[in-house]
């Protein structure tokens, strides 16, 4: 056990994931989101929501504003989805705008491409990201390329929502993080929120975007922030300022990272669940980390990344997905190409192992605070 890890016990009962980052005061150029708003706005027109409620609210706001928006997926109609993200939409907007689909991911996404080409704004739910592969061809060969192969005369402005990541005892078919399979595809945008407020604003921006968006929902964050300490009491979003979500319509723009912690010792690049784990690890290690929540992986906010590396000269990249050819490889290459002269230590990646996501060894697989703490130590001690 490392010294850094020993320090964690003192603050074990706190909520390090959200305790120090006031969500309504993002700093630096990394976050230009009008959606984040001022603290006053948040206080006057916001209420606590889980990420599930925030996603549901985004869908309801958009279906109310824009008749072209339709929502569908396996169990996503009458019942409201296995994670309840579409609950009540059918009752409110009618079965022609929120409906159940056959168990056919290629059908769900292929039909979404056709609806989008027709002129609707389909939001398709894939029940678990692990199930998306039968629909992968419709995403990669069709949705992503329809605009370019028709000189922009046909387009596919659709959103594919999918729960990603582990930490819920889902085994190898309910835990995967396939984001890198989409960031490798020209024509797509890939989004992954880490808070309810970002989830709502990013989903609204994704629905309004004129190109296909892969919207990854870290399912371990659906009900509360998660610092990686699975053996500690579960946190609820209601106890976190990040769970305070503005009412009504707002956007968090795609392509903009958020600087969620300020520091000058090391940059941590993270997204989704690992944003919270990274914050906990840095705090527990006593490291002044500059932590970026990338929020959109494609297109990447390169400016925010390079600005942070310029401040620190050291980089740890953290994601839950397998390491080899993971999105961390792209981040590492970007930093090396753009910031080589600024680097004072080799870049270190903290990831899941290159194995299927296990059932019985979930926490041995998960890149928790210990693994990140060790990487911080390695980078700072170089």
């Amino acid at each position, binding site marked *: 056990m490392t010294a850094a890890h020993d320090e964690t016990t003192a603050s074990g009962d706190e909520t390090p994931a959200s305790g120090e980052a006031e969500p309504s005061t993002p700093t630096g150029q990394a976050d230009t989101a009008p959606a984040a708003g001022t603290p006053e706005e948040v206080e006057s027109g916001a209420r606590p929501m889980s990420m599930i409620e925030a996603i549901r609210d985004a869908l309801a706001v958009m279906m109310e504003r824009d008749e072209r928006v*339709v929502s569908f997926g396996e169990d996503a109609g009458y019942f409201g989805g296995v994670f309840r993200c579409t609950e009540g939409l059918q009752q409110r907007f009618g079965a*022609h*705008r929120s409906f159940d*689909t*056959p168990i*056919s991911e*290629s*059908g769900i996404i*292929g*039909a*979404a*491409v*056709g*609806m*989008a*080409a*027709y*002129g*609707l704004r*389909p939001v398709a739910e894939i029940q678990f990201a692990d199930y998306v592969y*039968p629909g992968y*061809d*419709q995403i990669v*060969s*069709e949705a992503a390329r*329809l*605009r*370019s*192969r*028709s*000189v*922009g*005369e*046909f*387009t596919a402005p659709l959103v594919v929502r999918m729960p990603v990541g582990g930490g819920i005892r889902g085994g190898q078919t309910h835990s995967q993080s396939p984001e890198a399979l989409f960031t490798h595809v*020209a*024509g797509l*945008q890939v989004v992954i929120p880490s808070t309810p407020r970002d989830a709502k604003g990013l989903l609204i921006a994704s629905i309004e*975007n*004129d*190109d296909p968006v892969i919207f990854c929902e870290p399912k371990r964050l659906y009900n509360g922030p998660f610092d990686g300490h699975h053996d500690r009491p579960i946190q609820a979003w209601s106890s976190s300022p990040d769970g305070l979500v503005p009412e009504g319509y707002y956007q968090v723009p795609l*392509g903009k990272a958020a600087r969620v912690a300020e520091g000058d010792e090391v940059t941590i690049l993270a997204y989704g669940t690992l944003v919270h784990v990274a914050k906990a690890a840095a705090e527990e290690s006593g490291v002044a980390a500059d932590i970026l929540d990338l929020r959109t992986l494609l*297109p*990447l906010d*390169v400016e925010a990344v390079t600005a942070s590396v310029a401040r620190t000269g050291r980089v740890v990249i953290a994601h839950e997905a397998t390491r080899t050819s993971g999105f961390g490889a792209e981040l590492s290459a970007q930093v090396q190409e753009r910031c080589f002269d600024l680097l004072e230590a080799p870049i270190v990646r903290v990831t899941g192992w290159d194995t299927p996501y296990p059932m019985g060894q979930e926490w041995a697989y998960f890149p928790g605070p210990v693994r990140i703490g060790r990487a911080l130590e390695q980078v700072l001690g170089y």
Partner: protein
Amino acid sequence: MADIKPVQLTVPEPPARPGEEPDFSHLHIPAAGTASKPPIDVEAQATHPLADELIRVLDDDGNAVGEWVPELSNDTKIRALHHLLETRAFDEQALLLQRQGKAGFAIQSRGEEAVAVGSAMAVDATSPGYGPGLDMHFPTYRQGGLLLANRHSVVEMVCQLLSNTGDRLKGAQLPSMHSVPEKGFFSISGNLATQLIQAVGWAMGSAIEGRRNVAVAWTGEGATAENDFHSALVFASVYQPPVIINIVNNQWAISSFQGIAGGDVATFAQRGTGYGLPTLRADGNDLLAVYAVTEWATARARAGHGPALIEWFTYRMGSHSSSDDPSRYRSADAPQSWPLGDPIERLEQHLLTTGAISAADIERLHRDVDEFIAQAVAEAETYGTMNSGPELGSDHMFAHVYAELPDHLAEQQAELAIEEEMRRR
């Protein structure tokens, strides 16, 4: 007690291979005019016997017979012949351009032109009157006849084959992978069968908005084996949108005969019966049958009675594309021996039999069409060919990947500009 046979793998074989006499004796071809025509609002199940029939209108003497005879004026029939001839002449020119090295690839629809032309005329996608939108065909690369029958610019079509400066798609696509929204012609993927479920989704959009615009999906018989075919059928069955699913059974998928797609054990139309879709099977070389059956399915869809699935029974007379040689995998005489003949000759026979046109008129029509297409090719070549004349700029490659050029693509575009400057030096 039942017989016990050895367990063995069945690999279907066509009746004749190279060097053998073509053999179509196994085909069941009912006489023209025998198939019944149900009303457009009939229960789907009532159409299921038609999945094992063959709807034919033109008999062996060129007479139009039976319940399916469409009400078409002589002028419309002559127009159909005109489009059939245009399609054949266009394909011949496309192949010639490929052989001359002016185009990179060519594909043709020889023998099955009536399917696209008849369908285009019956759907009449570009006609106003069904609301603000158009209807939309989701074609494969073998339905160029849709564009010709919908009177698209032939020069523009040839420019697409040549990837030249007149190419609407600015070099993005293989020759024949057209995309023409205003003619109700969806962008062709090149990956097979993906367009079927997209057509169903498009029709679902039409139904969600309560419109009467129809989507028309196209596939060859070979690609009915793809997952997306089944996705399309189940979604069409569940949501009952206004979509027509056309299976063009031209007997060949490159070198694999239709038995490799499962056609020896059931007709392709019968695949729709298990989904409860209306299913019809018709002679694809009979322009009048194609028109009548498509008109029926279109009227049914527009009237809110939902989807239909149609198998068009025809024969791919040419190669799959400019990249294969059919004499390597099938009987050389097979195209000429196809028992349902050539769609152009059969329509001509009908027009002559009924006195709608004279032999001299037909001859003149052939000449006019050949000249028209040749002129279009000559004009298109002034915009450049694959290896000569003006070239498309490389910027087009980046222009439509996203609605707005993202920074990383702008960077890459700038890199290429430097590279191109260095190559010019």
